[in-house]
């Protein structure tokens, strides 16, 4: 079983509510779920959708073709109908129009039924019940989810919602004579879900973050919200700054003060933080920055997705200094790599990035739960140091002792100006040279900690898809499809900088006799450029997508196969 649904309608109609009820229900059934969101930059109106894919086997991406469209308004039908598979169905609200929608559709008077059952607010539940009825699933898991969601609001409301679910479900079972979906409900255990932003937030909490400051910006705001919801329980100061400049300077102040600190934004907000990034480097103050990309330049497409800030983030800020950059491919990777970012940032006293994007931020993946052994935690701060302490002491590996001001006896002095070992301003040519070397020296050890790419697919491939960051799942599902026709594999990078040169070169030995195709959610092939510059590896072909939308695995498979046929 491999089914995809799209819930489409205006912003404010409850698309997200229905989507979340459904993913919860399918997870309860023990199914693997993948969902992503496509929404406009507005609070009401427009056309948004929430897409869900389910299977009894692991799945990692969305598909362009859908089995069922739930249209909450009439405008959604012409917009999305072309993506409905020949045997698929459109479920629509017949209380909105008298006109029939022809074959392959089922009209249900969602709003009218909701009103009769106690109010329009029940419409979402009626529609969700109807969708499950059309598919032929059992209703019980959904009723449990409804009970769980509404039990706090009192018995009466919970019962109303249960009745609405039942009414929608029964209507669809009775009326949909042409529905012939093959579904299965495995008896497996209830599955867990993890979203991209939530994963970064969880990774931060598990790494001991105690200070988070940010300015709200789509699509990164989910991290701010998540950490704010955990602030009291885990003792995290979460402050909405007046601007991104303040946010990053606060984070640097908190880290100088002795706690782990983080900020997050999207490209435009991060652009304002760039001076602060340089400050973190000059003062060797560890900080973690989550950059959740959206398409630019400038305001671009505020709620959509792109992988076009890679080189910006890599080269942002004046001066030369080391940094760490991770680009997770899944929520699970986002969790562990956020943890690794905190670890490396503090160990080497450098800024560390998590580069995500809207697609990953708003995706939900089924995940097996945490592998606790993978969480790295070591406190590198020094709590005892006498008057001889020097914040920027020259050492063998370039890493100076990181003491906490006010806790140690010695003074913790640092400066954005070039400074001596004590941290005081200097213009000495000799000290300047040694300080530059001290900071850059750290790159040697940092690079060793970086993992190379992951290879998946055929043992002797003819085609190898090369990607990074949020395309991991799309590549995995694409390789599986393409492999049925031609030998295909994939190389995926999520640990980007310092670039793991030798590990990458070794991994690319698989390319001997195969054609590498760079797959990037941007126009210029930024990662392919990096690969060429760092590892002298050329990718002869590229597939780019820069319309602000993510890759779909069925669409990408077709494109790869078309290319394979052409050579």
């Amino acid at each position, binding site marked *: 079983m491999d089914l995809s649904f799209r819930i489409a309608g205006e912003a404010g109609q409850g698309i997200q509510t229905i989507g979340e009820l459904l993913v919860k229900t399918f997870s309860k059934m023990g199914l693997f779920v993948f969902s992503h969101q496509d929404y406009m930059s507005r609070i009401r109106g427009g056309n948004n959708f929430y897409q869900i894919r389910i299977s009894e086997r692991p799945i990692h991406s969305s598909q362009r073709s859908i089995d069922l469209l739930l249209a909450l308004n009439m405008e959604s039908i012409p917009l999305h109908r072309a993506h409905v598979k020949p045997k698929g169905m459109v479920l629509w609200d017949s209380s909105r129009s008298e006109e029939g929608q022809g074959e392959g559709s089922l009209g249900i008077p969602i709003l009218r039924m909701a009103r009769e059952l106690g109010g329009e607010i029940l419409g979402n539940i009626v529609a969700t019940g109807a969708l499950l009825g059309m598919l032929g699933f059992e209703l019980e898991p959904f009723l449990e989810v409804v009970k769980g969601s509404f039990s706090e609001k009192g018995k009466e409301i919970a019962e109303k919602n249960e009745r609405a679910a039942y009414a929608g479900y029964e209507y669809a079972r009775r009326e949909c004579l042409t529905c012939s979906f093959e579904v299965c409900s495995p008896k497996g255990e209830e*599955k867990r879900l993890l979203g991209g932003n939530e994963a970064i937030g969880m990774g931060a*909490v598990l790494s*001991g973050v105690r*200070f988070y400051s940010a300015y709200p910006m789509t699509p990164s705001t989910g991290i701010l919200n998540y950490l704010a919801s955990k602030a009291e329980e885990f003792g995290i100061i979460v402050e909405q700054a007046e601007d991104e400049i303040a946010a990053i300077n606060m984070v640097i102040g*908190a880290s100088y*003060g002795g706690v782990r600190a983080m900020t997050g934004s999207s490209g435009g907000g991060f652009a304002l933080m760039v001076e602060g990034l340089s400050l973190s480097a000059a003062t060797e103050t560890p900080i973690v920055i989550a950059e959740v990309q959206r398409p630019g330049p400038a305001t671009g497409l505020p709620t959509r997705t792109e992988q076009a800030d890679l080189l910006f983030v890599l080269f942002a800020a004046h001066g030369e200094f080391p940094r760490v950059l991770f680009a997770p491919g899944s929520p699970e990777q986002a969790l562990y790599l956020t943890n690794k970012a905190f670890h490396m940032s503090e160990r080497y006293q450098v800024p560390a990035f998590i580069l995500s994007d809207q697609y990953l931020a708003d995706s939900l993946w089924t995940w097996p739960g945490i592998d606790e052994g993978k969480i790295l935690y070591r406190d590198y701060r020094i709590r005892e140091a006498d008057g001889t302490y020097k914040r920027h002491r020259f050492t063998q590996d370039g890493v100076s002792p990181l003491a906490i*001001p006010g806790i140690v006896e010695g003074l913790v*002095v640092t400066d*954005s100006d070039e400074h001596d070992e004590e941290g*005081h301003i200097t213009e000495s040519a000799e000290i300047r040279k040694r300080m530059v070397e001290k900071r850059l020296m750290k790159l040697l050890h940092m690079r060793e900690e970086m993992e190379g790419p992951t290879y998946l697919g055929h043992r002797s491939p003819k085609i190898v898809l090369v990607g990074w960051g949020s395309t991991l799942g799309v590549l995995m599902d694409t390789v599986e499809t393409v492999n049925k026709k031609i030998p295909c594999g994939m190389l995926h990078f999520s640990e980007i900088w310092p670039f793991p040169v030798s590990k990458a070169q070794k991994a690319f030995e698989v390319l001997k006799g195969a054609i590498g195709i760079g797959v990037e959610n941007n126009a210029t092939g930024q990662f392919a450029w990096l690969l060429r510059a760092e590892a002298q590896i050329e990718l002869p072909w590229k597939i780019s997508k820069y319309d602000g939308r993510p890759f779909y695995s069925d669409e990408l498979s077709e494109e790869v196969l078309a290319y394979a046929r052409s050579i």
Partner: protein
Amino acid sequence: MQDPYNPAWCPGCGNFQIREALLMAMEKKGLRPNQIAIVSGIGQGAKMPHYISCNTFNGLHGRSLPVATALKAVNHKLVVIAEAGDGDIYGEGGNHLIHAMRRNPDISLFVHNNQIYGLTKGQASPTSVRDLKTKTQPFGLLSEPLNPLLLGVAMNASFVGRGFSGDVERLSELMVQAMDHKGFALLDILQPCVTFNRVNTFAWYKKRVYYLEDHDPFDRRSAFERAMEWGERIPLGVIYKAKRPTFEEGIPFLLKGPLVEQGFDLERVKEALLGKKEGPGG
């Protein structure tokens, strides 16, 4: 407490007296060097912490307040002072100043206000007089000067005062009052720039400044009047005070002690975070 030092200031600069007043204030407060952190931006005034023995974060132009706010929040046992110039804090960092007044962190801000840019050699600053001619203002300065005290009273900042570098003793007393104040204390310090400001000289100030007497700083209406007074007579002292909760007081878990001393128990966090199901699935 004094380090051997070699300041980068011009001979006769008001910064020398401000430094002297600051050292005196720290002595009056009985503070050890490691109990104090001075955060500064960029400018001649911002070099102050290098010439004082204390914890030092000399950051970016205009950005001292966000750093100082967060530093105090994570370790409220530290006495945190921000040192800035008029270009630094009223120009580049103006937005941070407004929001620091709103947040009310328990820190003091000492502004070395000489109404001119010194380090970049003589351009107009946000507090320069209108029509001031400089190399970069060929038609004279086309903007009105910012009145930091009036801004402070308008923003209901919890402590607004003005000192004069020419009176070290009284300046150090004002600094002590600012540091003793629970909340954000703005102390604007008038100082001559001997190299670039030929208008607001030591003698110019000396003729005009007077100390406020019988002024109730909690009387906002009267504070507005005093804050607007400029020209023939320039008031010094505490212009305005408001009783407000501090930023740190609003963070409930800081009652347990400084955040930096609270420790991190990974096992407890794992259990609390992962013991129950997370996200929409749970």
